């Protein structure tokens, strides 16, 4: 038989106008995750308690919230890993506007993505219209493409969370999206200007909080953001590179512009 215990959950209830933590007590069975407790509370005590969820398997990234102050997927947070003798605090993400209870308005993320230049492949390598890539060439972007868009990295990023610079900085999620495109072996697009300007990569001061909360364990900072920063530096701040490009521009211009 499964041993059952009881635990108290302090859940933030409210909307854009006001809200407060309310206590709910529910039974805890072996293997339960925070989302199970939320569902039990919905079924029996608070049917209008709002939370997003879909797959309940850590694959869709819908049930993001803050559990005891840490950004987490509720479906992957085991109660056995929490000190349930104390109340478990569950509240919505802070980097986005509140809609209701545990639900925030994450639509900004979808607007940001739309502005990033899409994938633009080189011409196919083979006459049948296909390409050739080696596994070791795609290993590094396969890491970024594991992203489930839970936006927990956006939630914890101080540029977005504390400074609310949503109009100047795209956040870690979209920096690794750009990294996945820029490092795609077939891609021919150049996104470095935007990274430096509209997308604000300079605002990231590599505190690595995003990496710490990523449920897919993507090395967002080390493998994604820092290499992108290096590309921006190479293009804009390396004096030798700058001189070389200046020289090249001059040479390119000469035939049409004879002295």
């Amino acid at each position, binding site marked *: 038989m*499964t041993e059952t215990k009881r635990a108290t959950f302090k859940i933030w209830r409210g*909307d854009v106008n006001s809200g407060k933590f309310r206590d709910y007590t529910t039974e805890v*069975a*072996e*293997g*339960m*995750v925070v989302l*199970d407790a939320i569902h039990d509370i*919905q*079924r029996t005590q608070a*049917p*209008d*308690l*709002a*939370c*997003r*969820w*879909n*797959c*309940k*398997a*850590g*694959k*869709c*990234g*819908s049930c993001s919230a803050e559990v005891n102050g840490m950004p987490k997927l509720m479906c*992957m947070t*085991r109660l056995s890993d929490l000190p349930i003798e104390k109340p478990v605090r569950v509240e919505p993400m802070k980097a986005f506007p509140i*809609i*209701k*209870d545990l*639900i925030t308005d*994450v*639509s900004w993320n*979808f607007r940001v*993505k*739309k502005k990033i230049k*899409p*994938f633009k*492949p080189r011409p*196919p390598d083979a006459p049948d*219209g*296909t*390409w*050739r*890539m*080696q*596994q070791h060439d*795609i290993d590094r*972007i*396969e890491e970024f*493409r*594991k992203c*489930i*868009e839970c936006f927990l990295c956006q939630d914890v990023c101080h540029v977005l969370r504390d400074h609310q610079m949503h109009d100047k900085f795209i956040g870690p999620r979209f920096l690794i999206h750009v990294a996945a*495109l820029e490092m*795609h072996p077939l*891609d021919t697009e150049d996104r470095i200007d935007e990274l430096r300007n509209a997308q604000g990569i300079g605002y990231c001061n590599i505190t690595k909080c995003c990496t710490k909360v990523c449920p897919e364990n993507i090395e967002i900072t080390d493998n994604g953001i820092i290499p992108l920063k290096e590309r921006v530096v190479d293009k804009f701040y390396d004096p030798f590179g700058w001189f070389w490009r200046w020289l090249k521009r001059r040479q390119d211009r000469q035939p049409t512009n004879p002295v």
Partner: protein
Amino acid sequence: MAEYETFTNDVLVIGSGGAGLRAAIEASAAGVSVGMVCKCLLGKAHTVMAEGGIAAALANVDERDNWKVHFADTMRGGQYVNQWRMAELHAKEAPDRVRELEAWGAVFDRTNDGRILQRNFGGHKYPRLAHVGDRTGLEMIRTLQDHGVHRGIDVHMEICILTLLKDGNRIAGAFGYDRERGRFKLFRAKAIVLATGGIGKAYKITSNSWDCTGDGHALAYHVGAELIDMEFVQFHPTGMVWPPSVSGMLVTEGVRGEGGILTNKEGNRFMFDEIPESYRAQTADNEEEGWRYCLGDKNARRPPELLTRDHVARCIVREIKEGRGTPHGGVYLDISWIKERIPNAEEHIKRKLPSMYHQFKALGDVDITREPMEVGPTTHYIMGGVHVDPDTEMSRVPGLFAAGECAAGINGANRLGGNSLSDLLVFGKRAGEFAARFARDNSLGKIDSPSRAGTIDIVAREALAPFESHGRGSENPYAVQRDLQEVMQHNVGIVRNEHEMLSALQELQKFWERANHVGVIGNRDFNPGWHTALDLRSLLTVSEAITRAAIERKESRGAQFREDCPKKDERFAKVNTIIVKADDGSMRVRLEPLPEMPDYLKRVVEEMK
């Protein structure tokens, strides 16, 4: 009069999984305006959970593969009640649809010569599944999403559709509400593509998300479209069984494709005990040969763990019923044993099955590189759905199209793993293409005639009724849903008989009564209790359709196993069950002969036997 906001597009796509996104991309490429509504956020639809891969005869790993072999495999797996034309189009077009994903940025695992790698899967003669580790669905949905958002599609997230609207016979629009604020919305369109996915939430143990409530099936049925093959519900052989909170969660067939074996508590590899006649010639009869197949030996036959899902699920049920199950009521699935055969097995498992490793480690305290998993069957997929024209995906209602899981025909009595993702792409594209063509050839249907407005008012009033009912002896929507799931699980599950199904029909009538008296608290702002109440209608409609079709097919075939008619019956070998709504509003079921397969395809089937 109900208040609502109106949106107008040439084509409206309902659903944002693989089929919906592919349809929307195709329609927008054809130059018409496209709207898309989805119950969840974009990119979260159930496609994201697909693990194993996309079946397509690319012949990158085994050059003997081609569309004919894929066609024959699909028909054999479906026990020959598939719509042959759909199986033919699917086998022929899937390779192009996969290559197209690569052109849109998808990154599949590679062969040594740099092409798309393909893996083994149940019922597929050759390694055929293009994949990315065990997160192929995520790769597919993200590729389609990222490609689609640059094509000017109007996406409305977190919208539920309550009813479709017709002008005379033809489709004219869809009416629903937004989950965020509970406001009503009218979507007018010249053509509508249903791509709403499955029905898993009709069952207690399922791999499906909350939103797989059979909305598309029910919406189409209520406006006069036919449902076909509804008795065929796929129970995936391997779902997690422990701990209880994850029971039903999918364990990819890719585990078996990579060499995983099924054993009972006595350590017996029971899949060797019973191999169906139609698969005997292509199945290994000893462990050694099965393992050589997994290593890519082209002269070896595949291990019995890679028989079709219907058969594997039944063998697992047999082991459990006869007392050879594991402590938590499953059987063992072991991939860790391959360390006896290959060096660096731990690394290999983590690289080929990263999600499975993570899922068991994080949720089940099991390290799959060291110990076996406990697994049992879980409701996974419905082969049945909206009856469509195989070439255009249009239903019997002019202007109403369907693609993906909510449409039917390609899979017959049982779907092969990997054929779903390719189905989404092949028929999603076709549905988008022909919906756009229909939209160009037709004007907008009328909504504002008095009778239409009447429909909208009635639907809106019914939708708000649960707020009125609360407190007056009303039912809890979650309780009705849970009780329905129990009945479907026990009476219309893997092993069926007429007696239990007839009693399920009686129970369903009571659930309709209870559903009419559900009450909810709170207001219309993001209210899950209210949303659950509104989903009951779809769940009840599809549950009744499944039950009636399953009673009508008095035989065992593919996913349907009847203990009271345990054999295949010739009388049902060449018919489909068809469900329609009669004029008096009751649900009718009839048998209809299959379309006759042309000779050139009959020869393909014979050659591949």
